[in-house]
C-alpha cells in the first residue's frame, strides 16, 4: 500500500525562481507582472482603431 502511494507520480516541483539579492520571484508571477506592464504601456501608446481625429 505504502509502496503504491510512494510510486504515485508527483509533479510537484519548486518552480523556477529568479533572485536579485534579497529579492526572489517565481517565474510564473514574474511573467504575469511583465505581461501587465507591457499591456499597460501598449494601451497608452497604440492608436485605437477608428479614432481618427478624436481629442
Amino acid at each position, binding site marked *: 500500500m505504502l509502496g503504491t502511494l510512494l510510486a504515485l507520480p508527483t509533479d510537484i516541483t519548486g518552480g523556477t525562481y529568479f533572485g536579485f539579492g534579497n529579492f526572489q520571484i517565481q517565474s510564473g508571477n514574474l511573467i504575469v507582472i511583465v505581461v501587465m506592464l507591457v499591456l499597460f504601456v501598449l*494601451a497608452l501608446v*497604440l492608436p485605437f482603431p477608428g*479614432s481618427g481625429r478624436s481629442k
Partner: protein
Amino acid sequence: MTTTLEPKAGETAAPETEELHTWTGKTRQWLIKVLPSDKLLPEGQPSYVASWIYVFGMGAIASLVYIIISGVILSLNGPAWYHVSALGHFVNSTHLWSVELFFIFMVVHLWGKYWMAAWRGGRVLTWITGVVSFAVSIVAGFTGYLLQTNFDSQWIAFQAKDALNAVGIGAWFNVANLGQIFMWHIVLLPLAVAVIVALHVVLIRVHGVVPPIDAAETDAQLTETAAAHTEGGAR
C-alpha cells in the same frame, strides 16, 4: 395618486415629489431621477473613451462571464468529471486561465484609473466598489486554489489556517474544511463578486465614464459638482 413622471430631456430636475407616498412609487421616482434610461443604456460614449486604456474594464467583465459559465459547467458535472476526463480537465484549465486574464485585465484597469484619478466628479463610490470587487475576487481566487485537492492546495490551506484562525474567522472560513470552502467558492463568493461588479457598472452608468485629466472640462460631472447630478450625459 395620479402623477406624471415624464423625464424630459432638458428639465428633469425636480419632478413632483409631493404626490408619491408609497415606497414603490418613491423608489421608481428616485431611480428615474438617478438613472434615466438614456444613461442606463446610452447610445454613444464620449470621444475620449476611444482609447485602449478604456477597454480593460470590459475585458475583465468578459473574463468574469467566462469564469461563471465554465464554473457552472464544472459545478453541474462535479469533481469526478473534471478531475478525470480529458474534457473535464480542459474546462477546468480554461476556468483557471480565464481567472488569470480576469486579474490581469483588472490590474491594468486599476492602474489606468489610478493614474487618471478616476474618483473625480463624484465617482468615489465607483472607485470604492472597484476596490471591494478586487478584494473579494482575491478571496474567490484563493478558495479556487484550495479546491485543487492536491498537495499544492493542502500546502496553501495549512499555510493560511493559522492567520485566518488568528483573526477569528476560522470557524466560518475553515480552509481545512473542503466542503465549506467548496460552498464559499461556488455560491457565496461568486454571488458577492457578481453583485459588486454589477453595482460598479451601474455607478459608471450613473456618473459617466471618467475623462482623462486634460479633458476634464468636457465632463459634466466635474463642471457641476456643486449642483445636483441632473445633467443629460457627458458628450
